[in-house]
């Protein structure tokens, strides 16, 4: 009986964990119910979907996706600030960390970010297509209350929908550096 209840509980949780609604390469281990997770480390290990995704190949079986080669990833992290106009609250105020040509869809931040600080981050794939360098769009959250700023094709820059996280409290009570 207990086993059945546990199974039912697990099924219920799985059904309730809505996938993150994004445009771009989706961050892994982040759900729609917690769009701004508080992380356990100020040097977070970030992971995202590899490119091309199965859905891209399905959508374009004999098109350009099949000709993609040498895929790497660009990663950026910004310190976030409350947005002046309140567009979904946060704004990429200062670029603090950037990496390009990452060979795998994951990266552990190499220098500690400031503690108890909200950051936004994004990734995109960089690849060769017919001998020329091309990129995918930077990944953004599709926010619940859509604004023009949150549309992936908005004419307004910078986007407000980058992925988010908050760094944990420093065990020594200090606030970290965070600049790259």
């Amino acid at each position: 009986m207990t086993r059945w209840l546990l199974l039912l509980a697990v099924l219920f949780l799985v059904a309730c964990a809505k996938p993150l609604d994004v445009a771009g390469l989706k961050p892994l281990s982040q759900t729609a119910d917690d769009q701004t997770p508080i992380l356990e480390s100020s040097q977070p290990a970030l992971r995202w979907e590899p490119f091309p995704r199965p859905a891209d190949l399905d959508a374009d079986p004999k098109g350009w996706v099949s000709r993609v080669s040498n895929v790497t990833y660009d990663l950026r992290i910004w310190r976030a600030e409350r947005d002046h106009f309140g567009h979904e609250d946060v704004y990429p105020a200062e670029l603090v960390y950037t990496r390009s040509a990452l060979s795998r869809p994951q990266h552990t931040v190499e220098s500690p970010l400031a503690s108890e600080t909200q950051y936004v981050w994004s990734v995109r794939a960089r690849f060769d297509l017919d001998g020329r360098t091309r990129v995918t769009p930077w990944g953004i959250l599709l926010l619940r209350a859509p604004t023009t700023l949150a549309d992936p094709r908005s004419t307004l820059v910078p986007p407000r929908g980058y992925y988010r996280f908050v760094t944990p409290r420093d065990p020594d009570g200090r606030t970290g550096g965070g600049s790259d």
Partner: protein
Amino acid sequence: MGCARPTTSAPRLLPPPPGEIVRSSLTSVALAPAPFSPKFDVVDGPAKGVGQGAARGALLGAVYTLGGGAFGGPIGLVASVFLAPVGAVGGGIVGGMTAESAAKVDERVAAAARSLSARQIQEDLVNRVAVIGREETSSTFTLLAAAGERADYRALVFDGVQAVLEISVVELSLRGRTGEIDPSLALAMAVKTRLVRTDDDAEIYANSLTYSGGQGRTLAEWLEAAELLQDELDRACTIVAEKIVDEVFLLVPFPARAKR
């Protein structure tokens, strides 16, 4: 033909990036800055004079009283309806006392316009696009002088230039929120881009972008901190330049998924 002229209306979504056939012909591109200074505006800026200050203060006083009352449940809400006129009177007095005179506000707006127009924003943006373009693409970028509007780029064919990318900052503005007495203002920069084929002077791609800053300061603070305004302009130029290079030369949208 020629560079885009200032305009206030712009589409809200970007057009699709140029196709690969167009991009394959962009091995040598000339960048053309706009030959005009961008229009400057302060939108929803500070209240001008006692009358405007009092009116905005009264409105804010009433709204805050009603908003505060809503936190107190139904009784608080009812009470706040009766207290809203008191809030409006109080807000009106504060607004009338704190608002700067119209002449002072106009003087500050003119000073901000002078400060921004003195900067080489058109050349700065084009230079940044050239730097990022050279880093990120295999195309060759040359800079055209902003000597005046060009009616015809076809002569550039003989220099091996296949296309001209016109980049025009059409408007710089400081934007606040409606109704505040001395609002925080954020920088906005509207930019138009046109890609013109030199073979036949035909426009083969165009888009509009607007940098919308997140950092808000009052008009007086922006004027006092000239270096912060320059930092914000630099930031706007970098973000817009990266976006232009991405859109024109690099970006490939994900394939559209079939709708179920």
